[in-house]
């Protein structure tokens, strides 16, 4: 038994036929070929699979693809400008060495993109709170915190 799933991903209307049990993360990765969204635990703790649904960060491993039907999804592949220019959040992560192996990074980028949209000038504590649902095993988080503040600066400069 499969279902037609129609949704918007990174501004593009996409459709695919999938079983009801297909996770949104697997749907994005395997059915749509958007492998930038990573799967680190499949139980909603690590945050690697975080994508934006209607602008809000969600764990795509805790959702079925059919649940996302009709919604607007943005993945890491959709964060840069159409001409490929990296977003301020992406640029800040490079500038501040906010990533090492890069596996958790797409989840952080989506989380931080939403965080700064809600709160363009977060305090240290608000940044900590904002990223406290994403695990990183490489960086020790220090440069990720720095990246978030730097991204806020870059967004400010470009506003």
């Amino acid at each position, binding site marked *: 038994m499969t279902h037609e799933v129609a949704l918007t991903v990174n501004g593009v209307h996409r459709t695919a036929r999938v079983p009801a*049990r297909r996770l949104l993360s697997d749907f994005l990765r*395997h059915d749509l070929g958007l492998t930038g969204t990573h799967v680190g635990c499949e139980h909603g703790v690590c945050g690697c699979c975080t994508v934006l649904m209607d602008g809000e960060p969600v764990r795509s491993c805790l959702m079925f693809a059919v649940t996302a039907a009709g919604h607007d999804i943005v993945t890491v592949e959709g964060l840069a400008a159409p001409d490929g220019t990296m977003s301020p959040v992406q640029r800040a992560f490079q500038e501040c060495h906010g990533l090492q*192996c*890069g596996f958790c990074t*797409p989840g952080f980028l989506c989380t931080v993109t939403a965080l700064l949209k809600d709160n363009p000038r977060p305090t240290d504590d608000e940044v900590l709170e904002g990223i406290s649902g994403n695990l990183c095993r490489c*960086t*020790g*988080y220090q440069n990720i915190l720095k990246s978030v503040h730097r991204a806020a600066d870059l967004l400010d400069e470009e506003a």
Partner: protein
Amino acid sequence: MSTRMFGEPIPRREDPRLLTGQGRYLDDLGRDALAAAFVRSPHAHARIIDIDVAGALDVEGLVAVYTWEDLPGRVGEPLPLLIPHPSLTHGRTAYPLARDVVRHVGEPVVMVVARDRYLAEDAAGMIRVEYEPLPPVVGIENAARADHLVHDDVPGNVGAVLLQETGDVAAAIEHAPHVLEFRLDIERSASTPLEGRGVYARWDADDESLRVYSSTQASTSVRAAIAARLGLPPGKVEVIAPDVGGGFGVKIVHPWPEEVLVPWAARLLGRELKWAEDRREHFVSAAHERGQVQHVKVGFDGAGRVLGLDVRILHDHGAYTPYGVIIPIVTSTQLLGPYKIGAYRAEVTSLYTNTVIVTPYRGAGRPQGVFCMERTMDRIADHLGLDRAEVREANFIGPDEFPYDQGLTFQDGRPLIYDSGDYPELLRKIKELIGWDGFAGVRSAAAAKGRRIGIGLGCYVEGTGVGPYEGGHVEIDSTGRVNVSTGLTSQGQGHQTVFAQIAATELGVPIEDVHVTTGDTRRFGYAVGTFASRAAVMSGNAIALASRKVREKALRIAAEALEADPRDLDITDGVVHVKGDPGSAIPLRTVAVLSNPLRYAFDEEAARATQFAVGGSPEDPPVASGDEPGLEGKDYYSPVRSTFAAGMHAAVVEIDPDTAEIHILRYAVVHDCGRLINPMVVEGQIHGGVAQGIGGALYERMEYDESGQLLNASFMDFLMPYATEIPRVETDHLETLSPLNPLGIKGAGEAGVIPVSAVIASAIEDATAIPIAKMPLSPAELFHLMSARERMSQRILS
């Protein structure tokens, strides 16, 4: 742009790809491949009575089911014992799929192949395995008691007894003015990269060749293992480590059962096949580390100088020993740290238990050794009423005593000789950074406000850059692009950046022109792997040496073209020019063209190298004897022994007097890894290492119950730190060059993690005045220790 890139904190060149979702990790490959899933043992120790696969056969999309009996010849043999050692008298390794007996929860029993992973798991769920449970051996001391055996033919569950000895320790302790004896415990933890293991194999029937992608730290060795098991010429097997989502040691083990089975089945089925590990599989079937019980006896004088140290360690290596006794060797040698102590004896008994295998995790036995030595230093200071830093200093090897021979044999089979270091200076720096000398006042001021704070210190020496060798290949093509390759792999260390910095500096080219490939046997076939903080030292030096060869050749060819003396030439921004005469110049891309005498021109530039265009003597061959066409070079770096980095950490912690919550107020690191290639990358390594160390000190442990079930095999229950648990790390560096290698560098990858448990224990002890002998320490455990002490002091009062 300046071509002097070595030592600069330049942004990483791999980042744009990884930041835009263009990374290619194992499970991002092979979209149309079949998927493998495994039926794994639910028992810690059991005999397999029967495997009934009938239920799986009706599952839609099922392609194949394999048990051990289906595995032919060498495919079904026990996995290799990678590092044999004379002390490992009873080494045992697992079969790729269990044969007759399972020895830990998670051991693979059946492999299922289906159209996708969902269906493979459906089928795996329908397979019935009948087991006869056997008594499990769980816990180090149960293993030592040996009421039951993990392997029938291994008496006492003892895989190895490793002895390290210098001097007469019994006599030294007997004659020492002071003697202390105590026990220390360290729990299990694990590398836990966010990407698990994974293998993807493609068999090309027309070419009779196999391409394997694996999330590994050792692609060349995986290739050798697969070729041997599958009976293929190594030249017909390619192994590529794609982007790897963290390793930290666990991915140096190879071949994993899946690395043999997936390529074998892909070839048999003539279909692309992939297995990507899920998180629970990683917890119960990859590898763990750390777990040790240490019995310490130390004799010392009134200044705190250690005269004799006798350490008996029980080490839990899990169900099998594919990685030999590397962790016991590292613990028992690196335990000595920056100190010259009198007589030393360490005896490590490495024991089998019915748990996941124990193989190196970042630090690889050093955190345990350093915990032992640093706890010892603190106990000596406490006993003598001396300052803890002072006691350490009394035992330091002096800056003028290098090379310093510790008289033991290190993990590379070479003598444990420290090449260089300046430990008093490291201590001076860390004391200054953390404010050690003024802390007594800070502590009492806090105490006056009812706050309990304490300071801790930990020192370590880390043997890095172990051999036997790594190589580098550097090629400048006719577009001026510099292709650099090395065989070892990358898991986030920034190799594409730091190796490019080395090549760009040596060659005098813009870093944008340099492109680095690692871990791809198609590009470089000889390598050892990425572990033991060795990549920068080994491949970094090999790439520097290869670059120097290319530079020399480029200058020679350019000198002919410019009619100049090579000694008068320099290379700047990719252009060879006469020093002081920028007009007399030739770009490296043109030198590359000239280096390759051509018959056929494929473009205008190439026409310059064709046979009627080039001059030269008609008596000489176009390629001189001993020369080669092309502007490329290859070289290897093979050190006589390891180079020894060092560092010191200090922390200030606060303990909540009511809840025993442990809060790290400050964390400081002073680190010496010789010359820094990219300070930003080194700092990143330190931050990450410290975070893992804090996980190991306060949060992470593998909770096995008495039946061998891992109770916390998920990220819900295994407490890996989030950002909220990790303090800001303050860093400072010292650069004591290594005399052993051309670049003067030492490894940095593991450093951050090594002394953290020792430092945190030291600080908690300082804050609470309760002896800390166990790590990790949870608030609940500390609360019980605090309550016990309170009860005891009330008893004394009443």
